């Protein structure tokens, strides 16, 4: 069902973890649908992404797309990172099954959400970047009430 590249990134995910005092953190998706991605960015003064880490709750494709997305943005400038679309992630993974395409969208959104967080913290505007659509925190709190 998955390409070899997807399986490789699932089996050996790159850049898993957290970054203390990250320049930007973005979390997208929600637990209800079974996918949550969190991206940590370490961006230096010349606005180059020096380091990137991720954590993902989700299926094989969700893990692989997060892993690939972190590889694609690492060492890149912010503007270059903005070019990392879901299509780019999918192509780098040699494709995804149709039902898993949303995972690649989530990976793109996670990068954007982390960049948005960075931009807000630094009071800058990144061209072409919009406020992330999904923020899980409100949902999450509401759901925990039901426990």
């Amino acid at each position, binding site marked *: 069902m998955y390409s070899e590249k997807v399986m490789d990134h699932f089996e050996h995910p790159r850049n898993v973890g957290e970054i203390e005092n990250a320049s930007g953190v973005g979390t997208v998706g929600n637990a209800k649908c*079974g*996918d949550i991605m969190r991206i940590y960015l370490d961006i230096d003064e010349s606005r180059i992404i020096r380091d990137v880490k991720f954590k993902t709750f989700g299926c094989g494709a969700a893990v692989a797309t997060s892993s690939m997305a972190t590889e694609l943005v690492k060492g890149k400038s912010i503007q270059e990172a903005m070019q990392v679309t879901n299509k780019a992630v999918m192509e780098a993974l040699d494709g995804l099954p149709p039902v898993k395409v949303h995972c690649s969208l989530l990976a793109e959104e996670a990068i954007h959400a982390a960049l948005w967080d960075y931009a807000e913290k630094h009071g800058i505007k990144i061209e072409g970047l919009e406020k992330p659509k999904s923020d899980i925190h409100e949902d999450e709190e509401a759901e925990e009430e039901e426990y």
Partner: protein
Amino acid sequence: MEKLIYLDNAATTRTAPEVVEAMLPYFTENYGNPSSVYSFASQNKNAVNMQREIIADALGAKSNEIYFTAGGSEADNWALKAAAEAYGEKGNHIITTKIEHHAILHTCEYLEKRGFEVTYLDVDEEGVVKLQDLEAAIRPTTILISVMYANNEIGTLQPMKEIGEIALAHGILFHTDAVQAFGQVPIHVDEYHIDMLSASGHKLNGPKGIGFLYIRKGVKIRSFVHGGAQERKRRAGTENVPGIIGLGTAVRRALKTMKTRTEKEKKLRDYLIDRVLAEIPYCRLNGHRTKRLPNNANFSFQFIEGESLLIRLDMKGICGSSGSACTSGSLDPSHVLLAIGLPHEIAHGSLRLTLGEDTTKEEMDYVVEALKEIVSGLRNMSPLYEDFIRKNNRQTYFMKG
């Protein structure tokens, strides 16, 4: 991957070698059409009827009450659609449960579009139908109660006898989908007042593509497939002779081994459950602790997602299944896990392991060790677990081991 550890026997089972052996002559040697007159073919009619008797005996039924079908889903479709049609004048109300197999649920939806009303009963948190809810749901127009014998995901066994008594007292037909239960637990159609029962061959080490519907004598039921006179004109089409022979052989075998097999499976199942619950934190057993199929274990592991878990298990040669959305091709996790009250994210992290006759204790140990490593690995990359740890181990929905 050195060795395959097959723990998905609720999905399908290995066809027993002696079952295959019994079937083989009916492809190349005894290939005659049972409806033909000459003795070469008509002996196949006897062979088919012998299997019918074996199955009837297994249920405490009569052989002319067993109708062969292409499997469990067909039997479920037939029972519901034909009963709705035959009893449509009496009423238009059907009672079933929220945890049925899709062969029942989607057939009910189909009937709803055609003017029938369906009550989907809730179950308790262990997956058991509440009898007072069933009583309360009965209307003068209720024509059918359909409750599965045992649930395919969480293994919970339903109070068949009590449900049968309620149906009988109200003069309502009682159908049960026994696809998972047949061959695993003793079933007696008279004792439980069952009017119709669906079962399938490949869940009990028989072949795929064959099953049957038991229809109590006297129950009005329409033909499902029109054509020839096979199956007392109710299900036309040349008999799947090798399949029927395979089914009968598998049933005879399953009954003979039931006691020792299920006792062994229960022991291993309990060993697996006890170890997993004791050794893996933030995990729970889904379904009833004791009123469950002897071979079924269903867990939820908090903070992780089922498909990831399945792929990692597969890398270690272990076959299981999950109720996560990703494995069902939809956005929602299993309807059964939601019906027992699990929040979505807990339902996404479910794992069903169903043992078989060949399962060993060594395999259970291997699976527990693999699970410990995999669950911990997936949690380490889960943002949900990260948040949880940050919130300093506050009380959660999960029981503490």
